């Protein structure tokens, strides 16, 4: 690494033509810690330069192991990985010169916030004057002014997380990995960090791969998301397309008039039976309570609404509330990682295959995320 005018410059040697398109290129990645059980199985995807890419999945899905492999901390058992055009197995140092890593576990030196930033900048070879300037900026940017002279270990969980993210911006990089960076942050700070990441990607072309359990922030931040479960890629696409694929089933919420509810006639049962007579794919996913609506799941919400109104008129039942809920990334996530054997399994498995095909076709097509993004 060389420093010129306070900025790091790097040798670009060793990059192949793929480096022009992809920041990350993964083909058939598998990993086992013990040689028996694979925690990652045959995962393939590409991440474009300048893209914000989310890696989602339940606990134990293999997200952190994937990040550890991509950041060269562990060697994969199988598969080919290129980071910024460099071969993961051969060019660890070259890769690490150009990436930043915010790990899931906290990591600090036994020093103050200010000293932690300074020490980290020192390790990156940033000249004293420059790292002092950047430290001051980062302390301000991440709202750490009041605790700047406190030891990192004395900070609250949220403050520690802020410091950990802030520290990574003390150096320049082309690709940033963040493993659940917003855990423990309050909503304001979370939004501030997400906006900062967005700005870095849009204005400076920084590629970001991050994992999160918070689907709202993935929805807010990511150009594309990959959903992993049990070490396998279940879905990969833009958030909007995933919503269309997985969220094709809409939720229609309905509340019938309370006067009817209090009657002895099982009015909802009759109502749903009539609905099924006119509507083949109606499924009541949630029975109503005094305060909660009945939820009807259908791939054709417009037909269901028509039927509801028609049946209500025929039955002389007053509709108090009718709503079609927009699909969320949470719907996508739940469908993609639905536990096997559940009633949702059949449809979610089918959708998972469909979406994985999209992921694979985008990889094989050489355009990777480009085709999926379009």
């Amino acid at each position: 690494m060389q420093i010129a005018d306070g900025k790091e410059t790097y040798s670009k040697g060793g990059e192949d033509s793929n480096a022009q398109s992809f920041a990350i290129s993964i083909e058939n990645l598998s990993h086992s810690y013990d040689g028996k059980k694979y925690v990652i199985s045959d995962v393939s995807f590409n991440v474009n330069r300048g893209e914000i890419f989310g890696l989602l999945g339940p606990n134990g899905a293999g997200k952190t192991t994937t990040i550890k492999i991509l950041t060269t901390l562990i060697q994969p058992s199988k598969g080919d990985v290129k980071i910024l055009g460099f071969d993961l197995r051969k060019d660890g140092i070259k890769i690490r010169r150009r990436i930043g890593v915010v790990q899931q576990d906290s990591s600090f030196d036994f020093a103050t916030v200010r000293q932690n930033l300074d020490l980290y900048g020192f390790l990156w070879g940033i000249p004293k004057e420059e790292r002092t300037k950047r430290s001051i900026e980062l302390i301000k940017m991440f709202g750490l002014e009041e605790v700047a002279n406190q030891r990192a270990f004395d900070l609250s969980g949220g403050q520690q997380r802020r410091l950990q993210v802030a520290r990574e911006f003390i150096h320049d990089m082309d690709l940033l990995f963040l493993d659940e960076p917003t855990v423990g942050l309050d909503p304001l700070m979370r939004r501030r960090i997400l906006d900062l990441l967005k700005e870095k990607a849009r204005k400076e072309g920084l590629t970001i791969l991050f994992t999160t359990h918070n689907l709202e922030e993935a929805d807010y931040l990511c150009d594309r998301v990959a959903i992993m479960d049990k070490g396998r890629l279940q879905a990969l696409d833009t958030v909007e397309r995933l919503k269309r694929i997985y969220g094709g089933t809409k939720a229609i919420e309905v509340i019938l008039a309370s006067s009817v509810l209090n009657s002895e006639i099982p009015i909802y049962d009759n109502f749903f039976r009539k609905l099924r007579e006119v509507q083949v794919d109606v499924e009541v996913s949630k029975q109503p309570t005094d305060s909660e609506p009945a939820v009807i799941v259908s791939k054709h919400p417009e037909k269901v609404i028509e039927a509801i109104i028609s049946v209500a008129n025929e039955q002389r039942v007053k509709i108090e509330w009718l709503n079609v809920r927009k699909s969320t990334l949470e719907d996508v996530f739940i469908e993609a990682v639905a536990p096997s054997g559940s009633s949702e399994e059949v449809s979610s498995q089918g959708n998972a295959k469909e979406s994985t095909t999209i992921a694979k076709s985008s990889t094989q097509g050489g355009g990777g995320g480009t085709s999926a993004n379009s």
Partner: protein
Amino acid sequence: MSSLPNSVRLAWRNLRVNTDPASLVVILGLPAMYLVFMGTMYVSIIPPFSIGGFEFSYASYLIGGILAFESVMAGTMGGSMLWADRRFGMFSQILSLPFTRTQYLGGVILATVAASLAGSVALVAIAIPMGSSIHVSPVGLVSVIGSLILGGIFFCSLMLFVAAKVDSNNAYNSIQIVIIFIVSFVSDAYYPINLRTPLPLRIISYLNPLTYVADGVRAGLVPSSNFFAILNPIETLVLLVETIVMFLVAYRTYANVKINIT
């Protein structure tokens, strides 16, 4: 500073992180207390004695052992660096930076040796007013510095081996204390080993590298005419071999160490 070799940069970071007051008390304070308390208490009851034709006061004898002991304490600091970095996540964080594992190890060993040498200078400054006789000669200086470097590398390697093997904080601390106790007291650091020393303890003393570090330092602090009467070159060779073996064992263990303790 930006053009520093990576191991030197890591060593500087290690020294900055590990030279908080509490750590300094352990690294420097403990040998200093041994020097002051043992020096002042025993010097009045132990008459001067001769080794290799050179007459030592107890204070003059002790300073060689205390400087050698400083390399043990610096070694514990080296082990603690890896231990703390594993425990507090900095080991994996540093390895995600453009550093190799070997450079990280180099940083730990360099910091350990630097701490050992700096601590020794401070201990000499304490020993002189206490009546320790110190003679400085070029060959003596080489012997002192060389012995301290080898001692620093040996004990750092030993503690790195422990830090790489053990996943429990209590176990690590307990093992460290036992090692310090056995290494420092079953050696000639504080008292000469002679034929009246029980055989098992004598054997352990002759296997203990601290004995040879202490002899190397002690020989370097007497007039050069007495140098080879105090230090047998075979001792230096034994120390060198022990250090290389311990380093290789530690390196092998360290190379496979888990990056995090969970």
